[in-house]
């Protein structure tokens, strides 16, 4: 392979593990996660920052990993869907999505759960409208969102006690 483009060394912490990588400047964050780190739970659904299938947490905030270069994540802490569970125990958001039938094909689900994570870490009692706004950048083509709303409400309830 030609080495015409200089690779750049970056350090990121992904799901609690420090990683050092050399990436092409044009590599997207989502490509880094999926291709370089084999974290295939983060998906791609569009090319235009619309669908949120690629949503991950960067320093605790939801970002669309298809709209960032990997080099921009240098020094950051990234959480992907694979990093949600603890010791094999589902995160309350994951559990709520299952309990409320908040998924069908499951392609959008990782992104939706991370957007929900962003919301619930900032607002423990979100109204229905808050939830709708928080996931406005996440497209789901299967569920019609109704059970997704229920799932996030359920997660909020369950996390309040925690």
């Amino acid at each position: 392979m030609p080495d015409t483009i200089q690779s750049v060394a970056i350090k990121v912490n992904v799901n609690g593990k420090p990683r050092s990588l050399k990436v092409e400047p044009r590599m997207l964050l989502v490509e880094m996660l999926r291709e370089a780190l084999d974290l295939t739970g983060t998906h791609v659904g569009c090319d235009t920052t619309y669908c949120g299938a690629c949503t991950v947490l960067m320093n605790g905030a939801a970002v669309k990993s298809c709209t960032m270069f990997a080099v921009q994540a240098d020094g950051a802490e990234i959480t992907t869907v694979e990093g949600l569970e603890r010791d094999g125990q589902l995160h309350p958001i994951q559990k709520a999505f299952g309990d409320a039938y908040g998924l069908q094909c499951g392609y959008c689900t990782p992104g939706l759960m991370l957007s929900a994570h962003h919301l619930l870490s900032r607002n423990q009692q979100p109204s229905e409208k808050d939830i709708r706004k928080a996931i406005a950048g996440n497209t789901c083509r299967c569920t019609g969102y109704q059970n997704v709303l229920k799932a996030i409400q359920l997660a909020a309830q369950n996390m309040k006690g925690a």
Partner: protein
Amino acid sequence: MGSEDHNKNWVGKPLPRKEENRLLRGRGKFADDIKLRDLLYLRFVRSPYAHAKMVSLDTSAAEALPGVVCALTGAEIALQTQPFIEIGPEPFAKIKDYPMAVSKVRYQGEPVAAVAAESAAIADDAAELVQVEYESLDPVVDAEQALEDKSLLHDEAGTNRVWNGVFEYGDVEKAFKDAAYVVNIDRLHFHRFSSTPLENNVVIAEWDPKDERIYYSCNNSFPSFAIQFLAAHLNVHIDRIRVETSDIGGSFGIKITSYPQMAVCALASKKAGGRPVKWVETRSEHMTSSAHGNERTFRDTQVALDKDGVITAIASRHIDDCGAYPRYEPLGCVIWSQVFPGVYRFKNARIDFIQAVTNKCPVGPNRGYSRMQHLWFLERVVDICAHELGIPSDEMRLRNYIRTEEFPYTTPNGCVYDSGNYPKMLDIAKRLIGWDEWKRKQIEARKQGRLMGIGIGTTLDSGTNNFGQSQIVNPGLPYSGNSQGANCKLDIYGEVVVAVGSCPQGQGHETTAAQVVADVLNIHPDLVTVRTGFDTERNVHTGFSGTYASQFAVSGLSAVHGAAQKLKTEMKQLGAFALRVKEDEIEFGMGAQGPELRAKNNGKCINYWGLANLVNANSAALPPELYDVTLNCRYIWRAPFKVPDKQKKYGNLTLTYASQLHIAVVEVDRETFIPRILDYVAVDDCGTVINPAIVEGQVYGATAHGIGAALMENCVYDAVGNMLTSTFSDYTPITAVNMPIVKYGHIETPSPHSYSGAKGMGEGGAAPIHTISAALQDALFDNGIVIEDSFNNADSLFRALVGKETSQAETLVKVERRV
């Protein structure tokens, strides 16, 4: 079936889905998640023109780029393959459809070349180096214009008319002669949209040179159909093509027609010496060149009604636009007639059905395929007549619905509607939405000059096709009936393992199949392993296997049930031998060591491992009369169909008829013209429910698709065939902020045609499109507007209301009153 099979425990329960465990953890296996050694990445070069001659094509610069392994052109493919099979008859059967353009492009986004490289990024760079020179031709973007044949897409056919047939039943002339009213509707139009699954198409192909076999990992949703096209095209025996699917991120029918891309990936792999080739579609590729739903124009509609507003006859001309290549078409030219009269009782009708090619993306069987267009048309007819005659829309429906006591109901074209109760659904929907209260509010709103409307949409979701209907479009086709396979076995250590021929995309087949088997064997569904995805080498598929056309609950689960019954019979034989009792003394259930068989009287028992061991590892202990017992039971379920009468276009075309009835309250903002949904109800009837949570989820999902299509999602082309909505940001799939809360109601009229009483229901019949059109018309009728198009957004409503450019009742609708 199964007299002792009344131990129903699991079917009917909202069991948590087995699929969740991997999907929630980000451990699903979608096609793009698969990596292989030596993998190459393929990128297509696509036409910027809708209609053009290719003057030259040069791939040399691309091939010279380091990291590029090969390039492939349409002309090169044409030399080594057969054109794809055409489903339709002459003259359209003459057209030559290759997976990439050979000498002429026919829609924007059509592939003309492909490059395969060591990385996706290199493939991207290389694709940009391919030089193509075009000479543009007159594009034909409108189907009615296409029928003038001034500019031909396919010279070999000599016409743009793909198919034409008249569907006539009853005595249409007499009904019009006797009519009290005749309503004439000049034009109605159903727009082009796509359910756009969130996961794009993905293909990995490997053409193994050692044994001349092709291996596919992909997300095609009807592989048994795809391999028939691929085998003939690639000159390869069908048994040498293996297709595997795993988790699929939605299809809604759109992923049925990915076989052209599958062909190119295989040919690229062959050219690359057998290295596997992966293609991951981008969203823009998906929007311009995977598949769209069928667009349809309804011309010169005449409706005969009696003095009470009962429709007695409909005559109309329907022009379907299938885009540049027919591919799955012209099947849509008959599939709509599964629901010929919709939910209505009229007996006389003549529909002249025509399909045309245009310079747009080819169509595919999009959720609600071909029936939703027709059902929307019928609902428009009913509402327009109701408004013109001053009959309330609910009353109009009650006068025209098929009556509950008439089921099973034979339609004028010989379809048998298995069961239903439309008036009851209407009643429930009205109660759920608070009909009277909204009517009162509407009067108030109108006094204030607000544009508020209430609309009803009644629809059908016909499921489990009789493939014999394909003979109505082409009498030469060798297809009829419908079948589905399943395998149920007791594995070596006594595990219960089920394999089905479907390839689910979120419908929860693993869960519902486990529920069915659990009930047959009287065990917990967690003890049933259901194989994920589809695999041609599992030998459970038939020619019609896949996931499409609302059928798994009927065909798939009937096959699973049949296989489980077969297994149960064998287990019983074996158990009777092992426990030295008669077969009818055997009971199935759970014991201390897991699932077991017990003798009713003496309490002796044998667990599943013991049974499986007898056949698999302790066979000397078996008596010869049990040698036929394999504990590996394949069952093919066949739908009870006959071949339809091709000349008369008469016969039963589908097995089950689920129905949905929706009501919407919509208001159009006086200033912004933005239509807003104020309240929404969906009531469904899909017979006996296997898993209520899954059914409810399907209803919400189909409702979102319908609301999106009605108000936001439209595949727009300009006059020269440029697609203007080629990204999600332009196409704007519906989001959580646009979705109203859907109030859900439900009735069950069990189908007499499936083993459990269930009906297929995955498509939903696009009820929201009918319903929102109806509500908008109710809101705007007093302003002289008739809703003429299935797509209505602020822009189109502004053009109708202020610009008076479209949808004007006085030009669109004429009523002859003879009483």
